């Protein structure tokens, strides 16, 4: 009966390895192994490809279940003493196989190239690089060069999808052959038992997949952003061991797996209690092996529990989750720029200008700001309605009302004109922006009015300053705004009266132009269009 159960676990493992091969093959049809594309392609599978999240989830969680069942299988063999001759070869091959499976999981984690995978990889490669003598070479071979980059992704990809699975397949076949060499009576019910075990294993995988909606994907790898890296759960005990080992941590991280592996591998050699029936003399070995398991399990639990109780970390992780959701939302909406996954943050429409607005303009120009000093900038700014309202009350609260200028004699006087002349004048000013929907007849009448009513102070010619007030040539055009933002204090604009700082040093011409483009867009935009631009 013990044997039957053992075999059952074994077949469940083989089944899950096949599941990994199938889901992995499907995923490899989507995965792009390069530092610029890796995250984007994973995000695509996760969020956009039909059932991609499901396949990816199965692929990830099946690995966890494989490792759990492997542990049980191993424990089972230890308890039953079947690591001894004549099954010692199966035992050794099995240990090697478990090592390879863990390596496959570790090499797979970095492929998503998100913060978690990237930083965990950095730490792991750092530890491997601490190996005496050959450390540097090992590190460079793992990274594919001097630093994490394209060749790191391609290398780990090669290991994860070609080299290690090939090895695993060979070892699996060998393991099964060695294990079966020792004949056992066939039981007619066994195939059904095996199938039930496979079904239970798959149910466990699917439960994990559904409860976590597949598997998470963090924000794209960012070498400039702090990330509290943690390894995958099944090597968590090493992380904890390092933590406990203090200055000897590197040694601990390198030596512990070797010690554990060594002890397990040595079992068939040191345990000479003969046939499976010699149970009584076997307890020291069984005790040592199960003790080892218990320690590993305890370290894992302690480590995870400590994180769970660390409020600072929980808060930081919540922020990371939010960032991930944002990045993935942008990736789904606008696609990831071919220049790399970090540029996804810059994909919202007019992102650059809106970022500048939020950091440089908002305080003085936003309706919602309590530090406002200048005219409100909002949808409709510079449009016909806005121009008319401005002309009628230039020193009103929403316009120059909060400026120092408004309280001086230099302040502009309200324009008083009959309604039809007012619309003509507005059309003339509006036409300066270069907007396509200008009523030419109105504009020309408006220009005549401007000549009479405004030229005492203003001018309308291109590049011409007014006598005592801003030149209005090109008012509201992209060029006008670019220049104005660069230096509002220049003679052609507000001159010394302006309280607005110059931005020609702080912002590049590209940034000022982006800002100008945004202002032009705002002119004909509505509030709901502004909202529809989405978060930055």
């Amino acid at each position, binding site marked *: 009966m013990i044997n039957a159960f053992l075999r059952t676990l074994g077949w469940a493992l083989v089944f899950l390895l096949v599941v990994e091969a199938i889901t992995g093959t499907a995923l490899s049809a989507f995965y792009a192994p*390069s*530092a*610029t594309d890796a995250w984007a392609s994973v995000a695509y599978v996760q969020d956009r490809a039909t059932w991609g999240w499901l396949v990816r989830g199965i692929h990830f969680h099946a690995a966890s279940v494989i490792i759990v069942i492997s542990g049980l299988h191993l424990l089972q063999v230890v308890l039953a003493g079947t690591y001894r001759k004549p099954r010692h070869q199966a035992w050794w091959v099995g240990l090697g196989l478990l090592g390879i499976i863990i390596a496959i999981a570790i090499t797979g984690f970095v492929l998503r190239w998100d913060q978690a995978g990237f*930083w965990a990889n*950095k*730490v792991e490669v*750092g*530890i491997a*690089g*601490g190996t005496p003598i050959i450390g540097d*070479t090992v590190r*460079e*071979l793992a*990274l*594919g*060069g*001097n*630093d*994490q*980059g*394209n*060749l790191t992704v391609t*290398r780990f990809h090669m290991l994860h999808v070609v080299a290690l699975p090939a090895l695993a397949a060979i070892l699996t076949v060998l393991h099964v052959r060695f294990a079966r060499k020792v004949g056992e009576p066939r039981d007619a019910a066994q195939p059904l038992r095996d199938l039930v075990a496979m079904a239970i294993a798959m149910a466990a995988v699917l439960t994990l997949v559904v409860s976590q909606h597949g598997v998470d994907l963090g924000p794209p790898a*960012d*070498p*400039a*952003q*702090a*990330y*509290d*890296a943690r390894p995958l759960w099944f090597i968590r005990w090493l992380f904890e061991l390092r*933590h406990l080992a*203090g*200055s000897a*941590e*590197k040694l601990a991280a390198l030596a512990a797996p070797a010690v554990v592996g060594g002890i397990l591998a040595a079992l068939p050699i040191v345990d000479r209690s003969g046939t499976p029936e010699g149970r009584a003399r076997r307890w020291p070995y069984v005790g040592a092996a199960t003790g080892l398991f218990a320690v590993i399990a305890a370290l894992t639990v302690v480590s995870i529990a400590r994180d769970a109780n660390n409020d*600072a*970390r929980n808060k*930081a992780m919540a922020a990371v989750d939010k960032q991930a959701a944002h990045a993935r939302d942008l990736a789904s909406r606008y696609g990831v720029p071919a*220049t*790399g996954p*970090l540029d996804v943050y810059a994909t919202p429409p007019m992102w650059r200008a809106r970022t500048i607005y939020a950091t440089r303009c908002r305080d003085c120009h936003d309706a919602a700001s309590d530090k406002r000093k200048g005219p409100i900038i909002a949808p409709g700014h510079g449009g016909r309605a806005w121009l008319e309202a401005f002309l009628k009350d230039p020193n009103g609260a929403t316009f120059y009302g909060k400026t120092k200028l408004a309280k001086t004699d230099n302040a502009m006087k309200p324009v008083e004109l009959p309604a039809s002349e007012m619309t003509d004048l507005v059309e003339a000013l509006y036409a300066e922006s270069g907007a396509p929907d200008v009523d030419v007849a109105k504009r020309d009448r408006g220009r005549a009015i401007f000549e009479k009513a405004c030229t005492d102070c203003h001018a309308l010619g291109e590049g011409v300053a007014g006598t005592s007030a801003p030149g209005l040539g090109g008012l509201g055009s992209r060029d006008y705004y670019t220049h104005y933002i660069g230096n509002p204090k220049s003679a052609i604009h507000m001159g010394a009266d302006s309280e607005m700082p110059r931005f020609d*040093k702080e912002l590049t011409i590209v940034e000022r132009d982006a800002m100008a483009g945004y202002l032009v867009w705002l002119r004909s935009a509505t509030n709901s269009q502004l909202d529809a631009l989405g978060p930055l």
Partner: protein
Amino acid sequence: MAPPKPDRRKFLKLATSAVGGGLGLIVVAPALRLLGEAAGSTTVKTPIDPIDVGAVERFPVDTPIKVTIVAAEVTDAWTSARDVVLGAAWVRRTGDKSFEVFSAVCPHLGCGVDFDGKQFACPCHDSKFALAGAAQPGAVAKRGLDSLEHDVTADGRLRITWARFALDTEEKRPA
């Protein structure tokens, strides 16, 4: 057919392993050489010139400010990219034109170091560093934060020379 003479058998054995081994070598050697290329090669190239991080006035005296270090161009094996964020540095203005600049890369295992208002703190394994960069007692990091070379240009802009250092060593040496 008569069994081969001992001499002949020896020859056949030798020839088989020679031809077989040679064939194997021809296949495996180039592949290994290709993979071994990685050792000692600089695949990720980042500029070594000083990088402008802003006007001096941008930095308040004594409060560390985190700046991102943006390289004009970085090549990574077969790609090149412009305006790449290389990492971050903590800049503390100590006087009119004097600064203290630390790489935000933790000297322990390379996580990004934060500033908690009083001292620098690494979230990964809890190393703490004093304002002046020294590792606090109890830190797993074996050395203090790595200072970065920097200068102030004639027109008052701070420039930082970005560098990465070997992780988890007592002395600071370039990586």
